[in-house]
């Protein structure tokens, strides 16, 4: 089954045994628990990176796995299961983004405290998270979905009911903002486009 190169790098692009999917289609809760074990963290992290709130991200996880339970019978295998599920996760995240007011910037300390992180994050991880959380939520969505999940501008435009140039402009402004931050903070400026 052909998978776009960027999509293939997504954490969602993992193989799922056909027999596990067959059991899930028959409503086997053990099989659903196994799908949750494999995909809950990728869904949670995608939503968390965009929404910047633990409870909102957990709402997305709950919504996605309830949808999987209700709709897995309709999954026909046209795309790998993980990418089908990723689409559910992206849609649920965008729904959250539209239905709630999120702060333009997320307070890193509050976010990490809410996540119950056992200790400080390694420097590189903390920097990456802090940079992302300084973007407004919609820009975070475009950056995460385009740069990490490999969605094209055409796909993003459809998701957000906007034009392709809108998505390109959001991404370009977000990257410029990240570049300025990196420059100001002296972090790996040369590695940005």
């Amino acid at each position, binding site marked *: 089954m052909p998978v776009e*190169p*960027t999509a*293939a*790098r997504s954490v969602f692009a993992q193989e799922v045994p056909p027999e596990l999917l067959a059991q899930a289609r028959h409503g086997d*809760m053990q099989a*659903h*628990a196994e799908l*949750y074990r494999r995909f*809950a*963290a990728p869904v*949670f*992290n995608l939503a*968390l*990176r965009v929404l910047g709130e633990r409870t909102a*991200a*957990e709402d997305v*996880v*709950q919504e996605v*796995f*309830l949808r999987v*339970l*209700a709709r897995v019978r309709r999954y026909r295998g046209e795309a790998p299961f993980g990418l089908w599920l990723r689409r559910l996760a992206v849609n649920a995240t965008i729904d959250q983004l539209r239905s709630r007011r999120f702060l333009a910037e997320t307070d890193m300390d509050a976010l990490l405290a809410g*996540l119950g*992180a056992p200790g400080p*994050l*390694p420097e*590189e*991880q*903390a*920097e*990456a*998270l802090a*940079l*992302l959380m300084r973007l407004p939520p919609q820009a975070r969505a475009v*950056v*995460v979905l385009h*740069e*990490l999940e490999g969605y094209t501008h055409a796909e993003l435009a459809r998701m957000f009911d906007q034009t392709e140039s809108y998505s390109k402009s959001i991404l370009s402004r977000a*990257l410029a903002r*990240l570049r300025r931050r990196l420059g100001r903070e002296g972090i*790996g400026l040369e*590695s*940005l*486009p």
Partner: protein
Amino acid sequence: MSPTPFPPTAAQLRALPHFAPDPALWPRIAARAQRRQARRTAAAACCMLLLAGAVGTLLQTPRGTTPLPDWQARSAALERELAAAAPRGPAPGPLADALVGVDRALHAAYVRGAPPAERAALWQARSELLESLVEAQRSGLRATRI
């Protein structure tokens, strides 16, 4: 063909930390899914009982009568009563779910040109469901149990 390389920003973003959701989340999701399933089963049973009752009543209706417009009009009147009693729509529950089921069955009946008696049975079932919903709404009860 070699895969398209990520832009450099992506390399930095890949350093993002990974977190896990609350370990108690799956049990909550599974419990909620089971409650939904139980509600659907109850709604389907409720729907079947109402349909069976409506068909039984229609079989006893003397020939030559045309009950279809009566049930349809009754349903429309009850719909208005329900809208007045519950402007934001009926409380979710088996009755509301059963109403959705009857509406689908009605739509399907019209699409395939079902005979008037069958449509009348469905309109009757719909009216009876709406009566129960209006009653539940007026008594201030949430229709969560049959």
